[in-house]
């Protein structure tokens, strides 16, 4: 599903050059649940953005569904993105002006789906996420856990092959966090590939594999129960 080779990302400002990722090589197979961990500033989010086709790498290869996408234009990436990837963010990132239903509906609109089909699909997802009683509410009227459930609903509504979650429980208390993680786990069990970035060991334990990043490099891959140390 995903394969990177020597992925590198360098941020340049006028005078300073910061290397956020260097020579990251790893693979995610379809149906896998991978957690990316590491201290603040280690490049987790940068990696996730590149994997999510929100950004281009500075160097290296990135094969997404067998497409070499590292030099795709924003337009090409946008197409791949909307058809294949769903996002969940730490701070939910719902559009405040749209209500729950409309927020979840948005990806389908951009896919050009007919209104009746959309309605059916959105209702179904809201039902699954146990949030349909709140569909007329606006994000600011919801609790954090509810907002994140809406965000997850929005991420899955278009049936993406891959879901990327950036600290999905970071802004939630433990009860709500667990609820969201259970939800993600069940999505994975029904076949969706899942990559989450997290600080939380508890969240990471849901994953089949943990990738540890430090200063932009993978230092350790941990498949449940067994530790592989990668040479630096």
């Amino acid at each position: 599903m995903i394969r990177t080779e020597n992925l590198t990302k360098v941020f340049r400002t006028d005078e300073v050059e910061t290397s956020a990722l260097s020579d990251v090589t790893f693979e995610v197979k379809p149906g896998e649940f991978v957690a990316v961990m590491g201290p603040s500033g280690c490049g987790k989010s940068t990696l996730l953005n590149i994997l999510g086709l929100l950004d281009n790498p500075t160097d290296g290869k990135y094969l997404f569904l067998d497409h070499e996408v590292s030099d795709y234009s924003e337009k090409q990436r946008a197409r791949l993105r909307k058809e294949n990837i769903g996002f969940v963010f730490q701070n939910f990132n719902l559009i405040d002006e749209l209500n729950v239903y409309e927020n979840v509906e948005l990806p389908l609109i951009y896919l050009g789906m007919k209104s009746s089909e959309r309605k059916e699909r959105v209702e179904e997802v809201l039902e699954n996420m146990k949030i349909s009683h709140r569909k007329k509410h606006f994000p600011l009227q919801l609790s954090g856990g509810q907002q994140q459930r809406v965000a997850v609903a929005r991420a899955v509504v278009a049936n993406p092959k891959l879901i990327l979650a950036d600290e999905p429980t970071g802004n939630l208390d433990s009860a709500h966090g667990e609820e969201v993680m259970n939800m993600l786990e069940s999505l994975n069990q029904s076949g969706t590939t899942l990559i989450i970035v997290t600080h939380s060991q508890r969240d990471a334990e849901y994953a089949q594999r943990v990738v540890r990043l430090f200063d932009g490099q993978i230092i350790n891959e941990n498949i449940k129960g067994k530790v592989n140390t990668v040479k630096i």
Partner: protein
Amino acid sequence: MFKNYLTTTIRNLIRQKGYSIINILGLSIGLAAFILIVLFVRHELSYDRFHENANRIYRVCIDGMVAGDPLNVAVSAPPAGPAMIREYPEIIAQTRIKEMPQTVLFNYQGKKFYQDGLLFVDSSFFKIFSFNLLRGNPTAALVEPYSLVLTETTAIKYFGSEDPIGKMIKMNDKSEFRVTGIVADPPSNAHFGFKVLASFSTMIKQNGAEAYENWGTLSLHTYVLLAKGVDPKLLNQRFPDLYLKYMTDLKEMDNIRFEPYLQPITRIHLHSHLMAEIEPNSDIAYIYTFMAIAAFILLIACINFMNLSTARSVKRSKEVGLRKVVGATRNHLILQFIGESALISLISTAFALLIVELLLPVFNHVLDQSLTLTIFTNGQNFLSLLLLALIVGLMAGSYPAFYLSAFRPIRVLKGTLRKGNKKSTTRNLLVIVQFTISIFLIICTGIIYYQLTYLRHKKLGFDKSHMVIVPLRGERLLKNAEYLKSQFKQLSIVENLATSRFVPGRDMDGTGYIPEGYDDNNPVIFFTNTVGFDYLETMQMEMVEGRAFSKEYATDSMAIIVNETLVKKMGWDQPIGKKIVGFVDTIEVERHVIGVVKDFHFRSLHAVVEPTVMFITHNNARNLNIRLKAGNYAQQIETLREKWEQMEGALPFDYYFLDEDFDSQYQADQRLGELFIYFTLIAIFIACLGLFGLASYNAEQRTREIGIRKVLGSSVEGIILLLSRQFSLWIVIANIIAWPLAWLFLNRWLANFAYRIHLANYWYIFILAALITLFIAYITVVYQAIKAALANPVQALKYE
């Protein structure tokens, strides 16, 4: 998808009430101003186009030379029109128009009115012009002498519900006229209006045909209708021969030249600035000026919209980023934002229409117009308005749309989007444009005001205040002039009085003379006023040399007084005693100069002082000029009226104040000035609205910075200074751009006046404009700055 955009737009508008109000209010006012000006401009451009044959109607004007001076007049010789019909088959109809310079006394069965707006016209009047004849026969109504065609309003005034056709009206207590037709009131977009039309054959019957055979007098307006497909230029080339054929003695006068040419009727109102226009015209330059102002105001309103939209971009950026993350392309977003601004523009247009509807009466009053909003009755106008709304939406929305849609999603979502001031070069530039326009308008308003004040207060060479003019109409009053004068003179309120043919501010005739040292065949034209004794004293004109008329000199009936300009032009060192030969009905009359009067302005200060002569006659006393002592005008007029009624009770007492009448010549300038003030205020208001929005945005953006600065010890004043410094710089730059533009424009405008202020003396208006804009901007900004500066720093820091 459209529904989704619409809901986002509307919810955004509701959530951000402040911005929405500023946007919609600014755009509504801007659009309202624009619509008002367009209504006016369209009306001005429509002049004389209602005539069915508008593109084939021409006025015969004369381009010529008299005594070496160029002469360009809107009038032509009485025999010219009929001769053209005879000589050129391409001209299929002509009508001459003779306007009565003064009101005439109409009497219908004891109902007496001083009737204005009387024109004597040829019978083909209705063949040429498409004025709507409601009753009567268009080809026959004005054939017979003593025929009258009344406008609807005039007919009602005299006859009420009676049928006017065939009724007799007595003019000036002398001749009886028969009403032969009723015509609809002429539309306001005709370059001349009228209330009564009388047959030209009446004049021929009264004065004899010979009176209208002189090719040397230019006294009538002549209009012709050309056959289809005739090129007026080819006709123009043949006209000089016409004069040579009919005015054979022209050949011998080598410094006189008359060359008729055809002027399209549709160009008269805005492009014609000849002498002896039938009515004062407007000027295309005014139209351009107003259109520019309209465009400016709309631009300012659009800039507000752009600035506020882009300034708010941080707030909208999250939405942009998310929409992109879930699959929106840039085109989707551009479409969304342009659609959004189109919607706002449509809402604003609806409000603008409301504002126009409310302001139209005021606007009409200032412009002396009767413009109406025809949006709802005219499909084409409705569509153009819709188009305007969409264009404005596109204009205002395109920049924000491209700007906002270009956000990169990760930067937005990570919160690393550059905030606030750094990326605001375009915004700053747009604010500078707004203030440049405002400053330009302020300076123009100031200078126009000073020029108008100058016109009103410039010494005219006579004193126009405390002067009441009583027109004397009809044979009886003309004969009684001396008696009336002596009776009024006994009143204690009267300081002085005298009769005269002409009154300042109204037209004065030019007549041919042969001054001493000039050849018999080359008459020179001098403006001529015939006056009674005491005229110069009454008007308080000043003598430079010699003396005024006096009853003590029996010879003064053969005396003439000239003005300084005439002396200069003749090059006389010793003007007193010089001989000037004039003509009374082709009989030569020799007069001698007894005095030189200081130049006085008989016409408006748009025109230069022409060589002028005055002499005494008693049979031409058309006006009684009365100088009142200082006192209560209303009471004094009552006293005059009582006296009048004792003497001439059968006739209504009619009068006007000279200063008001004279100043009414500057009405068009006055209107321009007033409109400039109104539209300048609107422009400044809209610009400030935008600045207010921008300032509040700025303060909001810098909340954290302000908090940190305050924690580090900055004072409230320091913060205010910090926030207002940037705006001051913009305004200084705007001034630097606006000054030369205003200077150039005003120099051109002032060139229209023969007498004008010197722009350089009014340099302080420019400085004042700078101070005013700085002050207004400062007030606007400082409110936000103080709010930000006084806030508790902890709140500011929590903001992140």
